[in-house]
């Protein structure tokens, strides 16, 4: 009798737990999944009026479009440099902060603070620092360096990479600090007894335990790297120097022209690239971190 009631109750609870998902699933379907289906459809027709199927023509036109190529190249280059840096530097900081140094919690606060400071608030300082006649150039000239027009030359990428690192390293560092403190102590003690050096311990033990976190931090940083348009827009507006022309600039311009076919093809292509990157990362993590997972 009691067990029957328990079963009934459990069934009700299970149904309730599924019901909890409904609002979100409905929202995601309405705002993302269904319209994305329409986007996929738009990407293979000539225009929304005649609905003539043209296969991959829109995609071919897109990848031959010079503005798109430039935007894709700049964005890919930016992410390829800034994301690994954001992972490695944050990990380095977390390792340094593992030591017993004075003022540790204050340092943690300082490194984390850019996360909570709106980019728009501080953008003027960045402009002052990297202006043609700005602080960085003045310091460089003092040491006999050549001034660089940072925001209007190929060096523009350096500025936005610095801004990206400034904003993201704190968050990544916290994730690594948490992961480092979760590595089993006895593991490290055994290694020490067997005479393992600091480098050996780091590369052969800690790094393996950290691999799920590294993957997570990498993916988060990658997602955030596509938001760099904000910084570029605030620094230089809608028409930046060539090297700072990002995919979002391309999307904005294409939106202005209401070119749905090009927009749709770009969105679908980008989504596919993200899925491929994600799959590769998951596979890598599976190979590298398998033997330490419980």
């Amino acid at each position, binding site marked *: 009798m009691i067990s029957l009631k328990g079963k009934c109750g459990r069934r009700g609870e299970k149904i309730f737990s599924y019901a909890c998902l409904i609002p979100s699933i409905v929202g995601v379907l309405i705002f993302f999944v269904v319209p994305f289906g329409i986007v996929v459809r738009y990407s293979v027709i000539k225009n929304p009026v005649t609905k003539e199927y043209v296969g991959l023509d829109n995609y071919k036109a897109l990848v031959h479009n010079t503005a798109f190529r430039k935007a894709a190249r700049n964005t890919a280059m930016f992410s390829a440099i800034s994301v690994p840096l954001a992972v490695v530097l944050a990990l380095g900081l977390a390792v340094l902060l593992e030591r017993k140094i004075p003022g540790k919690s204050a340092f943690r606060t300082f490194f984390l603070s850019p996360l909570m400071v709106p980019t728009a608030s501080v953008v003027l300082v960045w402009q002052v620092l990297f202006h043609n006649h700005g602080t960085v150039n003045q310091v460089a000239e003092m040491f006999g360096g050549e001034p660089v027009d940072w925001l209007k030359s190929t060096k523009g990428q350096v500025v936005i990479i610095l801004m990206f690192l400034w904003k993201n390293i704190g968050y990544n560092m916290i994730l690594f600090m*948490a992961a480092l403190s979760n590595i089993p102590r006895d593991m490290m003690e055994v290694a020490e007894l067997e005479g393992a050096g600091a480098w050996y311990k780091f590369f052969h033990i800690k790094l393996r335990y950290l691999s799920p976190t590294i993957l997570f931090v990498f993916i988060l940083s990658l997602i955030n790297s596509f938001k760099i348009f904000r910084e570029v827009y605030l620094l230089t507006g809608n028409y930046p120097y060539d090297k700072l022309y990002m995919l979002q600039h391309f999307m904005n311009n294409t939106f202005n022209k209401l070119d749905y076919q090009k927009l749709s093809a770009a969105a679908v292509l980008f989504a596919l690239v993200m899925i491929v990157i994600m799959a590769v990362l998951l596979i890598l993590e599976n190979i590298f971190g398998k033997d330490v997972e419980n």
Partner: protein
Amino acid sequence: MKRRHISNITVTVIVALGALLFLLPTVLTIANSFMTSSEISANYGAMYSNMTDSEKTYISGDVNLKFIPDKVTLDQYRSVLITNSDYLVKFWNSVWLTVPITVFQLLVAILTSYGFSRYPSKVKGIIFFAYIILMIMPYQVTLVPNYLVAKRFDLLNKRSAIILPAIFSPFSIFLLTKVMRRVPASYVEAAKLDGAGELQILTRIYMPLCKNAIISIGMLVFIDYWNMVEQPLILMTSDEAKALHPLSVFLSQINTSDVGLAFAVGVVYMIPTVLMFLYGEDCLVDGIAYSGGIKG
């Protein structure tokens, strides 16, 4: 032992220098917000003179970064907060976009994460994985579907065009589900023995236990949308809608026209998030720390 001691000092110095560099842009913004407009024009005017059509209008060629104002004044703040209402209007625009998004995204996330973490099943696993895929999609992908929906339901140029899709953004669901999965089954069993229903388990056990994570995720969502630039530029383009733009977008224009005020506006804009950070740093750190790992 001695060598270890020395290297600890080196590490402290390196970390301290780095930490100061990270603090620098924020501190400089605050320090400069107390300058008079004329002092700012004298120091930074050169930055903008070459943006106008008439060249060679500037007197001093260099842009001088200053830590301490010659004369400390609240003039900038007086203009921003009292004389010129433009900035306050934009500030409230930001509030009316960011607060509803944060509150409703959290409510949806609490309910959904609870659904995901109770009675795990294969179907739920598949749906959750689909959410992860959606989460990794950048704005460059999701804004196109968002635009189509806004156009279809006649939401373009309205705040709801930005707010509605943002409520269902899966980022907070992803983080919170990972935290909720750690709630010990024994707590739930004990509550059930006391006759608690599912809704009570959610409000009396899950929510209190995940309080720090919920606060932390709320802060992350808030700052992300407080910073928004992409969505208004695409979803709110008419002249009337531009009046509803958040301050984060508007600040890029202030910087070029009204340099004398930009620092104070920047400081006013960072007050809500910096206050959150000062009061909630420990929650934020806990929340971030719990969320590590894409699978677990």
